[in-house]
């Protein structure tokens, strides 16, 4: 077990559903309801740098991946959460990491995911010109 795996398991324990490590890339999967604690642990306790969040419509479900940089080691931790396509919402982490504010707004706008507790959840990129209910990154069924 690498040092990072150890520290992640130590701090997050049961919350980690899956963990895979290859070279300098660590991917873990957690439940969406745990995202605030997981983000807090990685950002505050591990001192990682917040990189961004990537979102995706995977048809059966939606997936968000929160990416963090471990700059002292040249590694990246990517935290995967799955969202039920009929309940597209998750807690905002912008209270812990100010840098997450914009990206959560962008995901809200492009994928239609709601971020509970976000201070300013409105479109970022000019969606007022698009059709009602148009989420560009969703797969059209």
């Amino acid at each position, binding site marked *: 077990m690498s040092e990072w795996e150890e520290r992640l398991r130590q701090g997050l324990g049961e919350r980690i559903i899956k963990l895979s490590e290859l070279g300098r890339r660590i991917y873990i999967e957690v439940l969406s309801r745990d995202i605030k604690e997981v983000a807090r642990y990685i950002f505050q306790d591990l001192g990682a740098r917040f990189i961004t969040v990537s979102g995706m419509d995977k048809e059966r479900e939606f997936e968000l991946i929160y990416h963090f940089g471990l700059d002292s080691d040249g590694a990246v931790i990517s935290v995967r959460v799955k969202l039920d396509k009929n309940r597209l919402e998750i807690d905002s982490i912008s209270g812990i990491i100010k840098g997450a504010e914009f990206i959560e707004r962008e995901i809200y706008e492009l994928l239609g995911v709601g971020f509970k507790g976000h201070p300013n959840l409105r479109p970022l990129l000019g969606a007022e*010109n*698009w059709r009602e209910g*148009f989420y*560009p990154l969703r797969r059209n069924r």
Partner: protein
Amino acid sequence: MERFGILLVGSVRHADVILVSGALNKKGAKRLKRLYEQASKPCLVIAVGSCAVGQGIFRGSYPISERPVDEVLPVACYVPGCPPKPEAIIAGVAKLLEKLRGER
């Protein structure tokens, strides 16, 4: 560009030529039309760069206007390239001026 008698102005009301560069997005199309209408005529439009000439690499992308620039405004000169070299832009403007002088 000033060597060729071309001066950048801050307001469309003082412009004889409008240079449009880049892909038009849906927001931009309406405004561009309005801006052109405000310009005192005659006012020539030059489309600079492949995106202004014909949407270029962003064709089909959702925020990009379905109508290229020349369906929104009457384009008098097309300078393709991605990006067009500075020499190409000057050559395009010079050609346009030549053509105008010829027609007078």
